[in-house]
């Protein structure tokens, strides 16, 4: 059967990418201890805004937040 509606695939892939980005952006718990050597944290790479996929992801997450606000009252 030919693929006539790519929307579910695109939407699902974007969801997965958003979930992954959210997991990666979580702050790491502070490590303390005698053997802990503080390293200089690398600055996180900024999201490449020139990539249209990233821009779309940001739009989708903004609209989703609005939706969540509405559905959660």
């Amino acid at each position, binding site marked *: 059967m030919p693929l006539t*509606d790519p*929307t*579910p695939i*695109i*939407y699902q892939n974007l969801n997965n990418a958003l979930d992954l980005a959210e997991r990666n952006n979580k702050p790491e718990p502070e490590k303390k201890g005698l053997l802990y050597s503080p390293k200089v944290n690398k600055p996180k790479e900024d999201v490449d805004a020139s990539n249209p996929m990233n821009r*779309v992801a940001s739009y989708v997450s903004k609209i989703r937040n609005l*939706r969540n606000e*509405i*559905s959660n009252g």
Partner: protein
Amino acid sequence: MADIPQPLLDAPIPGQSLTAEFGARPWQSPPQYATIEEALDYYIPRLQSDEVTAQLLDVLEMGIPVTVVANTMQLGSVMEGKHTVDVGMLALPVLTELIMLIADTAKIKYTTGLEDDSKLRGSLIDRAVEEFKQTTEPTEEPEDTVVKTEEQKPKGLMARN
């Protein structure tokens, strides 16, 4: 009954795309909106208008999935030469979210089209149960065809007479 693939009788005939002069179709000329932002600037005011919103909610209440509505919208715009197919693919998730936002705001129930396909429809389950019942119903057994064999007397060293 298994789904038998049907021939696509309404498909275009080979060479049909060459029956019009190149560039005569809207999608063969440069698009009106080249970027995703331009395309969204075209879609969002349309989706926010009262007329379109009312029609959209009617369609969703009829049970048409959100993904199908979003895809139809972008495909129509591609055919009108508003934007390219690529921009249409980029606009799809945003359109889907926007439509769901409008439906949530109006507090109507809708189908997203992203539901798990493994869920079986109720009618399918009923049909399967009916078929199963038919196959397992006790049928009249033919007359006893089992031939009783004569009891064989045990033989052997330990046999009791």
